[in-house]
């Protein structure tokens, strides 16, 4: 099983609902965020293009954050989800420095925090909070190892990219373009 997310940049309108939904669902403290929205505009008026991307931890197959962690607090969980066990985390921030996506932050309680792919919801058969709220339904979550899953089919049938592939992290978030 390999959990992944596909985000259709053609559909995303940058509304940031995914950000609020995550904060509400996961009790993310004020001033912090596990996901964020990037807007890239290229060109010169009137020849312009915008890419909108909702970003979060990529749950990399080859995660530098797991490697950097001196205690094993950062680890792979079911389906390749990368998690932090707060009770094992010393708050050294090595994982934060190691993530090419700046997906992690130090929770005010001291431990490293980031997107969990809402594993608590996924285990209940629900989509992650951000996925389930998105008004444009531009996000699809599922198992890439299952060739019949929506996400496998989407990624197969569409052009997609991952972020900073040259970092060698093998991300599990695909941006459909």
């Amino acid at each position, binding site marked *: 099983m390999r959990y992944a997310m596909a985000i259709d940049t053609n559909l995303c309108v940058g509304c940031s609902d995914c950000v609020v939904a995550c904060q509400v669902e996961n009790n993310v403290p004020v001033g912090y965020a596990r996901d964020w929205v990037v807007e890239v505009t290229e060109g010169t008026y009137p020849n*312009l293009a915008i890419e909108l991307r909702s970003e979060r931890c990529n749950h990399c197959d080859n995660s530098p954050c797991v490697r950097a962690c001196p205690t094993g607090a950062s680890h792979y969980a079911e389906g390749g989800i990368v998690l932090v066990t707060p009770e094992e985390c010393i708050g050294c921030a090595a994982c934060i420095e190691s993530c090419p996506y700046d997906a992690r932050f130090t929770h005010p309680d001291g431990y490293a925090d980031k997107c969990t792919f809402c594993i608590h919801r996924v285990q209940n058969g629900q989509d992650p909070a951000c996925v389930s709220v998105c008004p*444009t339904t531009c996000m699809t979550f599922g198992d890439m190892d299952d060739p019949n899953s929506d996400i496998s089919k989407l990624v197969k049938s569409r052009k997609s990219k991952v972020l900073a592939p040259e970092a060698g992290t093998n991300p599990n978030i695909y941006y459909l373009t």
Partner: protein
Amino acid sequence: MKTRREFIKVSTIGVGSLAAAGGLLSSLPIKDIFGQSQKVENNKSNANKQFPTYCEICFWQCAAWVQTDENGEIKSVTGNVDDPHCNGRLCPRGTAGVGMYKDEDRLKNPKIRTTVNGKQVFKDVTWEEALDYIAVKMKKIKVEHGAECTALFTHGSGGKFLGHLLQAFGSTNIAAPSYAQCRGPREVGFIATFGAGIGSPEPTDIRNSRCLVLIGSHIGENMHNGQVQEMSDMIRNNATIITVDPRFSTAASKSKYWLPIKPATDLALLLAWIHEIIYNDYYDKAYIEKYAHGFAELKEHVKNYTPEWAYGITTIEPHVIRETAREMRNASPSVIIHPGRHVTWYGDDTQRLRAVAILNALLGSWGRRGGFYNPESLHLPNFPAPKYPKPNRDWRDAFPGKFNLAGLALASGVCDATVPSITRDCNIKGWIVNGTNLIETLPDQANTIKAIEALDLLVVIDTMPMEITGYADVILPECTYLERYDEIRTSAHRFPTFALRMPAHAPLYDSKPDWWIAKELGNRLGLSDYFAYKDIEEMLDWQLKSVGSSLEEMQKIGVKKFDREEDNLYSLNGEDYEFNTNTGKIELYSTALEEEGFDPMPKYTAHPEPEAGFYRLNYGRAPMHTFSRTANNPQLFELMEENVVWVNPKIAEEWSLANGQEVWLENQDGVVTEFPIKVRVTERIRFDSVYMVHGFGHSKKQLSRAYGRGASDTQLVTRVMLDPIMGGTGMRGNFVTFHTSKPEKTVPDSRKVESSKLVKEEGGKA
């Protein structure tokens, strides 16, 4: 908004200050998600439950569930999957609904304006005192001037109860800014054409459409949920979107065609499209023959409105106009020339929307799949009450012979009618303002304040200490939508639905719902016959039972769907149909407009342009905020703390403006923004205009987050381009220039927004 590059700048502090930077993180206090430690009494009986509601953060009114935590505290709000407005998905504002409830800056007690040591302050009072005070004042106005000299401004759900109160009292001056400041011209333009308005939610069959033409409507930023969802479906289906917008909107970035039109010239483009569609025989002949009136006149009328002609005005190249016209034809009748919503732009808005309606008619999209569907709702009877008295006059008497086609009261009209003048004798002396921040909502603030100066009584019912509350004689704190019942939502959609709003928590502080306020005031005004129910639960239950449901049922399901009575979702496929117009047909040639002395078919007229050094003030929405009402919402504030002014790189260079630099904007009348606003240098805006999101630049210190963040576009909208047909207030004819430091020069007296009525520093306990 910050660029990653800016971050780099921020962090390039010297080595010497590293120590401080390192210590910063660890020394921050830990706060809960709302950054507050406000204690709310536990409500264990409500623990871990969910309560139905519909969202009040904008007027799309998505039905939702409110979840409570183990202490019975409100935890989250999520969409109701049975609701066609939202299909189980709220927009960011709806998802952040808890922030409206938890905002610690909320209005907490009723207050009355009093004078202490020569200074006006607000005094905390009990509800008894506040309501008694209002009743005495209202009775006095009735005796001295007549009951019709009162008015209600209301935007949002509770208005139903207050409107009932006002009509029972004897006044029909009931206005919402969602008409003359928003969609009025669209309603009038479509009624003139199809005999029916658009209403809300718009019955646009976007999800089935093959071509959507957006004229300014910036869906995606304009976050009206259902439309955003359906536009997404369209993109997924590879349907064509054509966006006409001088700014590269989010929708434009999703479009096959973006027409970067010169602002204020849309009517020329629309006429050229009509020309193309008629003269190339692109129009739906059978449909036009069967349903339309005035085709020959229209054809003659648009003879000279060629793409080449329009090019000179709009800067849109003729071949683009032709190609896009073909795209529409190819999709017809599954094509929508979107009527927009906030359409009060340039004063000829009714005519522009007429052109939109005509285009839709020519392409046969009205009443067709993928065009405009025929919405249906189910009516709920009103709770039995005596007949309303008939007032002798209303706000319209202030404008003899004018605005006859305005279907609803004009908020700006009521406001103008309140300003004493020799020609007008309306003598409106009392206002109740509910859920509308008139100061930031109506254009020409100085005029709004002049009207307020003339009042004997201004009651403001609000949830937050917004600008308008500073001018009130009495402030009544309403509880938020998560803490109250309201009327049943019965809006029309593809099928009829009901949605219930019920409290998920008892009202915080000393706040009360509108229905209670209306009933209590009614009692004090001797109108208790009009409020013959014990409480709203009794009233709602009575209403629901009359259509075979019940309050109990609705409390469980939240949304109740009904089958359509008639199978006519798409009704105009050759069936006979009589339109509600003079001719019974779709009026390409409007007899109603002609009767009123207006052009029966839209004509192009040019609008003023900015002088050198000035730029047209363009404004709009950000997806994560609603007007001024959400600026202080703790969650939404985090998403976007302030507005910025978009400036084209060429202009920025000319003025040496850097990204992130603060500027003050001054308009053509010498009005300068109270607060500075940061510059966003972006290619997304034309060189002849600047853009900002409406709803920022709050001047009330009590809004602890929003105060002084960004600038208010409303301050700069001092020139109003009045729509002669229905009185809409065109607001896009204002021009601004930049100041890099706060200019010394003061505004001409007539423009000064100062008032003896404004209580700047609220006294008493907060």
